[in-house]
């Protein structure tokens, strides 16, 4: 209300709120301290300790001893199994990201262009609800569907498409792929809908009136305008996959394990410096991605919408 009255004149905060004094800065900073303690003491410091440990070594009793070397990193990169699992994680991440983006884009495009806003929001709510139910239990449920005696196999056998249970879908990479797409596609749909909702679809018609083919209009008019949304969706799907160890351990079988399973296994076997080295490699890679794409990290928008 006061904004209209104020018009062109500058609003000046009343002096009563400006409590001047010696410890003013400190007093204003005080409410920030608990959060700073958690962020620094329980996040940055442990990560730093993990980095230091990755440069140390274990003795015969598996105690960590401060012998500085790059051996843990060298061993990681000279072990083909480890390097292959890193490569596989990247490929899995890329494949899941592409699948999520394609699926989510088609749905978001449909909702933004052909459905009234009211119904689109409702549809989006239905897409996001599974995301808020227990992650562990959804993965567990997929086990019962994709497994050898699972519902999918029974359905295919009932239809006469296959004669004996297939192990095509579970305890291998295919199982991991399906479940990861399942887990992350709601995220992608949410982000892409948010950017398509702001897009004026008459621009596509205008481009075609001016002689552009539908494909050309799509590429030169639509895509550039939703690029931020596409990038946000990509990082919100790709980065978590680098740390996925629950899904591969439940539906991936022995062959489907990803890089984060390696970290978890090292720690389970008390090989802390080795595990710390792999962990730090993932962390460093994620940090680089986050720094490159920092503009697109509106976490609060992604989580509070829908």
């Amino acid at each position: 209300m006061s904004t209209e009255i104020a018009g062109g004149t500058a609003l000046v905060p009343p002096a009563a709120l400006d409590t001047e004094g010696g410890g003013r800065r400190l007093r204003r900073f005080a409410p920030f301290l608990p959060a700073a303690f958690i962020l620094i003491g329980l996040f940055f410091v442990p990560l730093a300790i993990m980095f230091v440990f990755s440069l140390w070594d274990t003795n015969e009793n598996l105690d960590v001893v401060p012998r500085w070397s790059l051996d843990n990193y060298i061993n990681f990169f000279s072990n083909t199994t480890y390097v292959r699992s890193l490569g596989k994680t990247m490929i899995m991440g890329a494949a899941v990201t592409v699948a999520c983006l394609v699926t989510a884009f088609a749905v978001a495009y449909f909702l933004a262009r052909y459905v009234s806003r009211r119904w689109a929001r409702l549809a989006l709510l239905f897409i996001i609800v599974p995301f808020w139910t227990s992650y562990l239990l959804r993965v567990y449920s997929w086990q019962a569907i994709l497994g050898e005696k699972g519902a999918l196999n029974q359905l295919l056998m009932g239809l006469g498409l296959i004669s004996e249970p297939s192990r095509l879908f579970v305890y291998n990479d295919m199982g991991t792929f399906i479940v990861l797409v399942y887990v992350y596609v709601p995220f992608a749909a949410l982000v892409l809908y948010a950017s398509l909702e702001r897009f004026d679809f008459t621009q596509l018609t205008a481009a075609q009136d001016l002689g552009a083919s539908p494909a050309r209009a799509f590429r030169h008019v639509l895509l550039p305008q939703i690029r931020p949304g596409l990038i946000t969706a990509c990082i919100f799907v790709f980065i978590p996959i680098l740390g996925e160890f629950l899904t591969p351990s439940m539906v991936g079988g022995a062959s489907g394990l990803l890089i984060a399973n390696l970290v978890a296994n090292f720690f389970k076997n008390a090989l802390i410096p080795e595990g710390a080295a792999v962990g730090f490699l993932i962390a460093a890679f994620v940090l680089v991605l986050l720094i490159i794409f920092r503009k697109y990290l509106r976490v609060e928008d992604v989580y509070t919408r829908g």
Partner: protein
Amino acid sequence: MPVSRYARPTRWVLRLWFWALLVFLYVPIVFMIAFSFDESATPGLPIQGPTLHWYDVMLHNRQLLRAVGNTVTVAAIVAILATIIGTMAAFVLVRGGLRRPNATRIAFTLPIMIPGVLIGVSLLIFFARATDLPLSLGTVIAGQLVVTVPFVVLIVASRLQGFDRSLEWAAADLGASPRQAVRHIILPLIAPAILAGALISVTLSIDEFVITWFTVGSQPTLPTYIYTKVKFGVTPEVNAVATVMLVATLLIFGIASFVLGRWRRLPGRRRAKAA
């Protein structure tokens, strides 16, 4: 208007695709609920029953009930602490108590974006090797605060950023003390954001598995208990637990969107946003 002859088929394909996605998203949930009423001990088709046997088994499983208790305790403490700590920090972040607010905002997005397994193992090293703290529900709470506090900070800060400060100044001009302004003007206006942060904290905490898995001691939370159960054998009562949890989550979710929806329609908030 040059409407391509492919426009109608495209639309139908997209509509089909949309429904296919919904089926894909709900199939595991429907199966989970159906299996919880299945008489056979190895869940599969066709479903026999219905029976409430597994709900009965669930209610008599002492360990499981204890795990539920632990989860509720942890979630309550995490939500309260995260909401208070995060809201206080958001005020400082937006109202200029910091030299580099943008860098700070990015620093708070890191715990959310960094894969949980890294937070988990680094905390495990930290607690076990650097502090000598025994793993307990306390370390679980500490671990979960690492991800929930940043959520509250970012959500409340983004609401505070769109806040019309002249409302607050008007209150001061009319004689309100800073404390009264906070209590009667600011808090009611940013309450939806605080509530959203609290609810996200509760939901994240109840469901949190990865960080908890590495920081949990001898007292399991529900997800870590279920994980060890399903890893070492078939336990159909897990489906019953899952169904109950699903209903609980949907209730929280439904109440939240109802309350937030009502709040959004309050006149004060719209004015704050229009500024």
